[in-house]
């Protein structure tokens, strides 16, 4: 009964290579599926996921959750050759979702966009951020970025980027690294963090089809 077709939820966006590691990236727009969430949740989600969906307190968050999990299960199902609902997604102690079978994946969302990265080679982390004015951006920069990241940010602003823009770029690189390692923001030594291979997703994101969106996105992918 499972219609495991990527045309149902999202589509493949492209392939990224960093330090001879390859990953494929999929995307989906949550808003395209507002009407499908009941069906998706029936067709693709595990029973725990379906229960979790009902815990969300805002409709947007619940819809995003369903579309994200559906995308994950459809893509993994194609790669692993088992029905989506039968895939067991486990979490590491630090909370990173993983699957067995030699496949590494990671998902991210911002606003209406969901991205998923998949690699056969190394653990992967992906992050996307809708470009926007970030409230209290200077407080965030001071509180959360390392000296190296602050230097990166300073170079971006020196080239004319706004503080918010520069912060989101640096943040997405940081998040992708943290997620590749599968640790929280206070969990990674800065040395380990900078040993991770990371690259921005600008090219892929510029070719994002399907949405005449005035907001652009920035993102990054990293391999541990």
């Amino acid at each position, binding site marked *: 009964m499972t219609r495991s077709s990527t045309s149902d939820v999202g589509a493949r966006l492209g392939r990224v290579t960093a330090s001879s590691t390859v990953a494929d990236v999929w995307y989906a727009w949550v808003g395209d599926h507002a009407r499908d969430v009941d069906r998706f949740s029936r067709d693709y989600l595990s029973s725990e996921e379906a229960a979790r969906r009902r815990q969300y307190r805002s409709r947007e968050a619940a819809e995003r959750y369903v579309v994200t999990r559906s995308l994950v299960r459809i893509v993994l199902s194609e790669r692993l050759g088992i029905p989506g609902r039968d895939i067991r997604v486990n979490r590491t102690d630090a909370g990173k979702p993983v699957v067995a079978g030699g496949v590494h994946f990671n998902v991210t969302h911002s606003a209406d966009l969901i991205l998923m990265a998949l690699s056969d080679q190394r653990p992967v982390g992906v992050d996307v*951020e809708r470009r926007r004015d*970030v409230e209290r951006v200077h*407080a965030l920069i001071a509180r959360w970025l390392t000296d190296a990241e602050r230097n990166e940010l300073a170079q971006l602003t020196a080239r004319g980027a706004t503080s918010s823009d520069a912060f989101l770029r640096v943040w997405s690189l940081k998040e992708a690294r943290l997620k590749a390692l599968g640790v929280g923001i206070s969990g990674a030594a800065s040395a380990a963090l900078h040993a991770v291979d990371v690259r921005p997703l600008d090219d892929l994101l510029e070719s994002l089809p399907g949405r005449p969106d005035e907001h652009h996105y920035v993102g990054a992918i990293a391999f541990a």
Partner: protein
Amino acid sequence: MAVPAATRPSPIRFASDDEVRAAGCETLVDLLRFRAEASPEQTVYRFLPGDTKPEQRITYRELDRRAKSVAARIAETANRGDRALLLVPPGLDYVAAYFGCLYAGVIAVPAYPPNPRRPDPRIPSIAGNCEPVVALTTTALLAKLDQWRGGDERLAAIRWIAADEDWPDAAGAWRDAGVRGSDVAMLQYTSGSTAAPKGVMLTHRNLLHNLSLIRTAFNVEHRVEDVGVFWLPPFHDMGLIGGILQPCYLGRGAVLMSSATFLQRPLSWLEAMSTYRATTSAAPNFAFDLCVERIKPEEMRGLDLSSWHTMFDGAEPIRADTIDRFARAFADTGFRRQAFFPCYGLAEATLFVSGGPWGQGPSTLDVSRSALEQKRVAPATAGDRLRLISSGAPASGQIVRIVDPDTRLACDERRVGEIWVSGDSIAGGYWNNADESAQTFAAMIEGDQTPLFLRTGDLGFIDDGQLFVTGRLKDLIILSGRNYYPQDLELAAERSHPSLRPGHAAAFALTGEGRETLAIALEVTRHHRESEHESVISAVRRALADREGVLPDVVVLVRQNGIPRTSSGKVQRRATRAALLDGRLDVVARSDATIDDVARALGDHADTSAPVEAWLRRWVADELQIDVSSVDPTASVREYGLDSVTAVRLVTELEQVLGHRVDVSLLWREPSIRSLSRALDAGGHALSSRTGSDDVASLRRDERLVSPLPASEFPEYRLLQARLEELERHGLENPYFRVHEGSTGSTAIVGGRELVNFANYNYLGLSGDPRVNAAVIDAVNRYGTSVSASRVVSGERPIHQELEQELASFIGVEDCILYIGGVTANVSTISHLIGAGDVVLCDELLHNSAMQGALFSGAHRLTFPHNDVSAVDRLLGEVRSKYRRALIVIEGVYSADGDVPDLARFVSVKKRHEAWLMVDEAHSIGVLGATGRGLAEQAGVSPRAVDLWMGTLSKSLASVGGYIGARREIVEYLKYTAPGFVFSVGMAPANVAAALEALRILRREPERVTRLHENALLFLQLAKERRLNTGTSRGTPIVPVILGDSVKAVRLSQQLFERGINVQPMVAPAVSETAARLRFFVASTHTPHQIRNTVETVASLVDATV
């Protein structure tokens, strides 16, 4: 009616058209400088501060000097063309600050001065749009807005200047900025929306051009004298251009007042019109309705409105029934309906577009209603008639066209279209908003390349040279003279509850009972259940009240897809309105506002949860733009779908609030907002492992440096010094802070000498009682000297509850809460139980602490004449319906006069108006009533008829502290939430024990109260026999001897002191000079001999000085 010559402004020299032109005024700077040169001593503005305070006035010369002074200070930071945010309350400071901006060549950006308790989010949004370099405000506001300014990036970078601080020397530093006519003089923000603020750019040329149009339309050339009275807010075009700039342009006078003054007492407007023989004013419809409603015939008697010849308002068409009612009600004052000057205008066209002819009153046109709905103009027929009021003739000097908004073709005469305007008054566009500017300001009529037109967004037609406005393309809603954009209201409402469908709401105005009311229709989702109707409706009301400051009269919930939309999916507000009125709308629930609904809607403003939890819920609500009541504390933050940047921002702000580091993973680990709050409250868990010195330093970096205040720059201190020096000059010793050695009661020891003491509140002689002392020592031995924590946390001791219960049973109420001070009890309780949207009525002689509580609450504060229960009845009759809660605050015994209120009547008034009654029993507990149970016992009224009993423990009860006695739920609520209780250490064991033992003695020995009553009566009778002026004192142990002269009072106190009698003077400013007095506090422990001797001594000294 004769007007005293002194109050009339001096005749004003007529400034001819030529004179203005001759001065070559290209800018408003030129204009004011010319005026200051040509007529330096002429008063240009008077400001009436209200409350019978004297008028303030300013001459052209002085205004010029102050403008220079402000400009010089602005120029220290800002360059020509920079923006200056103007956040100054109405008054002469405002005018000086506005001109100061122009003098500095910076662009003035007027906005409503923010309410420090709830700063308007529009101000940061305006600042984000126009990026001001400086902001002008007042000293008072500056201090109160500290946190707000620091907390918002868009405000923190601005340099703030207190414009009310006059620096006389600064004017000399002013340099002419070389301002030109084409420079932008000001930005007038029009949009009510925080999302897309629209600042109309008005150049000096725009302003001067429009002022000249108005002068022509007002027929000014043919008159010599014009005086305007204006109370419209000077932050908007009408109040600023019409009320402030126009009089300066004409070289004539204006009397200004704040809209608050008018709203509090509408009569004050008409009184000013009458007193100054004013000729000109501006006001929207509701102002006239308010005058008719509020002003009583007997109050009209003294008014002379016969000079009034020009009354304008272009923001909304004047309504015929408003004119009729006002003209009828005020016929005897000489008011003429011809004074109504019909006009039309908008900020994008500076102010004025069309108006007049002057002196004829508004003309009307009857048209066919059905044709008009089809956008056609046709003659009325029987049964198909709509009466329209003219908006006057388009001013010569600009072009007004009626254009089909869709085809952009000019309409013929018989068609309704959008009103388009072109000319030198039209603004250049919206600041920093090219898209909106292009759409609004650069419209071209199809087939014509020039000129470019302003699209007003208003619909209308021109008939026989007169403009008629029929509606609004943009569906603007005007309520009580304020503009609301339906989009804003819909947005706030539809996010208030998950059952509502975003983007599926329509807000619109209904006209009913002579005023516009607000209705909002919202679609509910399929999952919406009937049982939720009520909670959805109240969430909508609350969101609109909270976010937009409006209360919808009608809320309807509509089935999915029930709201009409265009083919492109846009909500059709007018079609929705029509469907609602015709009963065609698929309504699932409807609620028409009643006071109860509104009260319920506003009911749970106050958050009963712990502070961290409340903070978190508010944060999540603000972030997701939903109502705080829909943030479930048992849900986890994760369930609200915060992304990583939002999560770290939440943590960053939490750290700032808590003052320590927070582990981010708590956000995801804790299963609910409540458990997260507890973890954070507990502190230890929340502290991350890396709270090194480095972190502490980075937290400190944010702290503001506060420079020490030099006393010489602190005028309040200088005033105090002057007062103390005054005493010295009269050879009087400072009577304050006199040291009393030993315990004081009916006697006191000062400087080793025993005095008969009438200067303390130890009414029952229980302070110093050995049994009380012993109880205190016992308590200290058992519990120590402090409870070392708030009672909520770990400061609770058994004797706290014992005292609360015994107090409650003594007073006759369900429960009691102790505060560490009487002042804290009043301030904290009042400011906590009421807030914005409520009204509090205070007796004018109320103790400072209750007044402060009322002030801090943010509720509307009304003061009634001392003990005037009829005035309370009347006031509530007028205003009760406008407010959620009403609280009346009175005292049991007023300590200035020693008189008491008529409790039974207050109770009946409070019941009639569904108000709460609070009685401050500081001087009546232990004092009034046969057994000292206070005012209720004395008045024979059930103590439960009063909602809040407040009392102090420092007087009859021989301790320190305050209490509130009330219903159990109220006390419980206060114990968990009142800041003065929750965030304060619990009352010290010694103090609790003292009050407890004193209370027990009082219950056992009611004869102390009897003796107190006998002594008080004896003192009063003897004083009256000796013809001392004891004022209204009656039946209380407080007996004033009124001397009417502060120096005399202090001297008499001194002489009595020398004769062994200690009594304190009460002088200005605590009471008025004519009420300066000595105040005798009689105690149960005074002997009849002491009392006789005292009265005799006082009387002979008073006789000797006469």
